């Protein structure tokens, strides 16, 4: 872990998922449940409502894994998921958050 810096680690082995969902109670459980049942850790989550609040956008930071394409298909099948896009780990959304995550 110490041999490569955090940024390199991200670039090597992580992906960012952008998921548009209907905004009502339980949707987050549906999404993250697909990961937890496969013992697939979610490293980071950001979520806020969009526009009028009827939809939300969930950003997930996950490890790259050979299961990721299947995970994305499973997420895409959820009734409350409108769309899912995959980005590289260097996507800006999880950057500059260090101040909120100091021990």
């Amino acid at each position, binding site marked *: 872990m110490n041999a490569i810096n955090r940024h390199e680690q991200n670039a090597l082995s992580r992906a960012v998922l952008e998921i548009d969902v209907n905004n009502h*109670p*339980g949707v987050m*459980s*549906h999404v993250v*449940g697909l990961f937890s*049942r496969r013992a697939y850790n979610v490293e980071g989550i950001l979520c806020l409502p969009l526009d009028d609040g009827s939809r939300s956008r969930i950003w997930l930071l996950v490890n790259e894994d050979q299961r990721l*394409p*299947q995970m994305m*298909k*499973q997420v*895409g*099948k*959820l*009734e409350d998921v409108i769309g899912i896009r995959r980005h590289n780990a260097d996507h800006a959304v999880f950057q500059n958050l260090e101040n909120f995550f100091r021990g």
Partner: protein
Amino acid sequence: MTDTLNGAQITIRLLERQGIRTVAGIPGGAILPIYDALGQSSIIHHVLARHEQGAGFMAQGMARASGQTAVCLASSGPGATNLLTAIADAKLDSIPLVAITGQVPKAMIGTDAFQEVDTYGLSIPITKHNFLVSSAEELLEVIPRAFELAASGRPGPVLVDIPKDVQMQVIDIGEWPAPGRRQPPPEPDGWALSEAAAMINAAKRPILYLGGGVVHSGASGQAVRLAEKAGLPTVMTLMGLGAMPVDHALSLGMLGMHAARYTNLALDECDLLIAVGARFDDRATGKVAAFCPQAKIIHIDIDPAELDKIKTAHIGITADVDAALLRLTPAVAENRRTQWLQRIADLKSEYPLVMPEQDNPLSHFGLIRTVAACLDDEATIATDVGQHQMWVAQAYPLRRPRQWLTSGGLGTMGFGVPAAIGAALAEPERTVVCFTGDGSILMNIQELVTAAEEGANVKIVLMNNATLGLVHQQQTLFYGERLFASQFKSTPDFVKVAQGFGIAAVDLDQAANPCAALMEAINRPGPCLIHASIDAEQKVYPMVPPGAANRDMIGA
């Protein structure tokens, strides 16, 4: 015209408008308003199960036999948790089900109220989708949507949790929503279909691999036409049995863990596998890396997540399989495939499925074959889970889609009796046979009284070896014959138990002429238990040991 109704009455009216005529369930405090409304319905017949899991499997039996979405009801808390196994079973076998549960009033949710459980949270991973309804108005949207979701795409169970105060909330309804219907599936990709046709035409040793999706899609006839035109030997999964008559010249029967040797050996040699509505389940494939090792793969499924999940397909087609086969068949060349079919014939004669004692109705295969001889293809065959299930899958001449009702993916002991009752209620003109074991039947035996109450035309063939047969078999073969917890030291008198529940019963062990006694029991209308003792040392053979390649089968 405006109707003024409460949420419960709205729910029942929406079920009526969906075309629901029979529901199974058990009332309880949190669903009493719905039961009050249901009691006033002159259209819907309510079947009172004796355990909510029984209600869930009755609904499954209705759905599996008819292909139509079926409904089960339960109260909150234990009512809902008792339903979960039947819902999970429907998820794994893609059965369209709408489960409606009562919930404590909204204001009490989260207070650990009496009979409160997080039904929504519990049902997330085992449903296709679920709803917690927060107002009576919402029911007008949610109930039709639940039916649309259950039946569209890959079918599955949908749960609707309705708090008691929502059931009692009175609103005015101006216009009723249209019933929820199956949405048209995506059109198959024409380019991929023509590539698939070219691959079939170029293949020397192709095999068609039919799964439960073929049955769900109503594609059996089209699958047989494709096989006949292109000369395709055809294997079926446990869920696909009946898609092609098992005695069709091109049928290789069931593949996988308990397939005939010739079936798995043919797959080992194939150069093209055409998977249709099948999901490469581990019981079908054995060790995946060694499954059809020489084959290119065409995979057609309505669920895009099934493509490339276990095996990477050379051509993957997301489509309703009936629509895809309808377009694929004209594009493939007529081919008699003499060489390959000769090779298949040689494998069949060299490595046949051995079924000893077929003429002895008190042997496992003999009993199954004798039952089959008493019936025609109109009969519906249900099973429980265990050795008997595999023997029936191997030996019963299944020839019709939806003839065969079995718990495939979840493998739920206790499935058989209530599913058979549900099938008999959905199609009262048919005789429904349920093969079961002494382990399985005890897991939902309380539904015998439901069968009696409904006069359901179910014949329960109990193959009693006083063991948990598949456990006994695995302990014998793979755990150094250390038999533990697989032999029952006490067994009930099943004939008396059945009679005590109010249904006829016959013991073939005691019959002077077992064949005649069996035929008489099957032909007598109404429910009947047919008991026969079988040898506990009999194994389901051949068998692929867990984790092994399908070519490495053991036993007969």
